[in-house]
């Protein structure tokens, strides 16, 4: 399964869990008990499904369940992701199971309600953290331009940005694997040096900057054909580095053209890391 499909599955699963939890939460009253029971089983089913999906997904891919860690191996994923997933999914699983068990052991009812209540706060915190991690920069940019319409678009496209980030992470994870033993993380600084390096392999394309300009957030222009080139920096062009085949094709061509040789997996990851940092 490729990363894009894995990610679609993950989003679908996320919707199922979030929807199930929401319905269970608002139908907790006696008069909507049947719906509450149904959605409770749904949530438990979703948690079980998540564990099964982790077995199906590729190692290090969107469906994998990474172990929560206290250290952040930059430029890797924020460790908060693994923590949020572990706490939220774990909390909801226990809340669901105790709800089912409370039918037999009434004493579990308090624990069930307490966990459900806590889970709601965790969900809200989760949403706030996600908004902070993914949209902080864009929200601040937006406030500079400060138009309500742009803000609304940002909110609507937040899930798309999330998908793009996951696809890019998967591509980098692939290069990290290819880099093999001794790999010590990608470096935006090395990526920058590569991007700005002046080379002698081609008289027409001495550097990446020949077409992309020295500012990766700016529009580029093909040095021979005059064709407009969209910015390489992820902040200016979120679709960059999200299609693995496309990324490989471009590195294949452009490394050969500009550097006169192929790029190593580490160099490719460094380049992406630099473009993410811009």
């Amino acid at each position: 399964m490729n990363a894009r499909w894995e990610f679609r599955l993950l989003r679908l699963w996320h919707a199922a869990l979030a929807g199930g939890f929401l319905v269970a939460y608002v139908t907790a009253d006696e008069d909507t008990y049947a719906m509450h029971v149904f959605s409770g089983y749904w949530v438990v089913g979703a948690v079980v499904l998540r564990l099964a999906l982790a077995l199906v997904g590729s190692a290090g891919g969107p469906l994998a369940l990474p172990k929560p860690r206290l250290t952040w191996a930059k430029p890797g994923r924020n460790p908060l992701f693994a923590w949020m997933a572990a706490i939220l999914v774990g909390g909801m699983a226990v809340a669901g199971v105790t709800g089912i068990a409370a039918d037999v052991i009434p004493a579990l009812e308090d624990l069930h309600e307490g966990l459900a209540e806590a889970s709601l706060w965790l969900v809200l915190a989760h949403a706030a953290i996600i908004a902070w991690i993914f949209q902080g920069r864009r929200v601040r940019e937006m406030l500079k331009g400060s138009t309500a319409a742009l803000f609304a678009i940002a909110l609507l496209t937040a899930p798309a940005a999330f998908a793009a980030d996951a696809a890019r992470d998967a591509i980098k994870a692939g290069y990290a694997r290819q880099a093999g033993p001794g790999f010590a993380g990608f470096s935006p600084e090395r990526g920058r040096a590569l991007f700005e390096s002046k080379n002698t392999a081609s008289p027409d394309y001495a550097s990446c900057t020949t077409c992309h300009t020295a500012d990766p957030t700016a529009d580029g222009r093909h040095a021979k054909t005059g064709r407009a080139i969209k910015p390489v920096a992820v902040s200016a062009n979120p679709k960059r580095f999200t299609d693995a085949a496309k990324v490989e094709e471009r590195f294949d061509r452009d490394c050969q053209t500009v550097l006169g040789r192929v790029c190593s997996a580490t160099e490719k990851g460094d380049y992406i890391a630099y473009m993410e940092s811009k």
Partner: protein
Amino acid sequence: MMKRIILAAAFSLSALPALADHVRPVTDPETLKACGECHMAFQPAFLPARSWTRMMGQLSDHFGDNAGMAPDKAERIRQVLVADAADTGGGKAGRKALRGIALSETPLRITETPRFIAKHERISEREWKRPEVMTRSNCVACHRGAETGSYEDE
């Protein structure tokens, strides 16, 4: 409803004169993306099928640049181009483009075909040297509707 139909018909009629210089553009998304990344996705009707086949077979040296891509992708795009080439599905524009090209010739540069040269005879060297033109293959610099297959005099 009726009003809309009449309006749509009127718009369609107003577009008719443009058909005179119309060359069927590429619509296949993969082809559009692959070609259009570095230059305009030129209409296949400007070259005979044999030219497109040769071009798609030597992408690592694409007019001096490396345009290499996965072989299956190159083959899919070749088929799209060959289907609408000057001597296949290129229509009237294709028949015109073929004039002056001998069967033994396999031109690769559209800008070196007899039809292109004849049509651009009166363009002075100074025009070509304008900074936004850069190269003769930059159709859109002068023909604003080139991407959609409209090459009216401008």
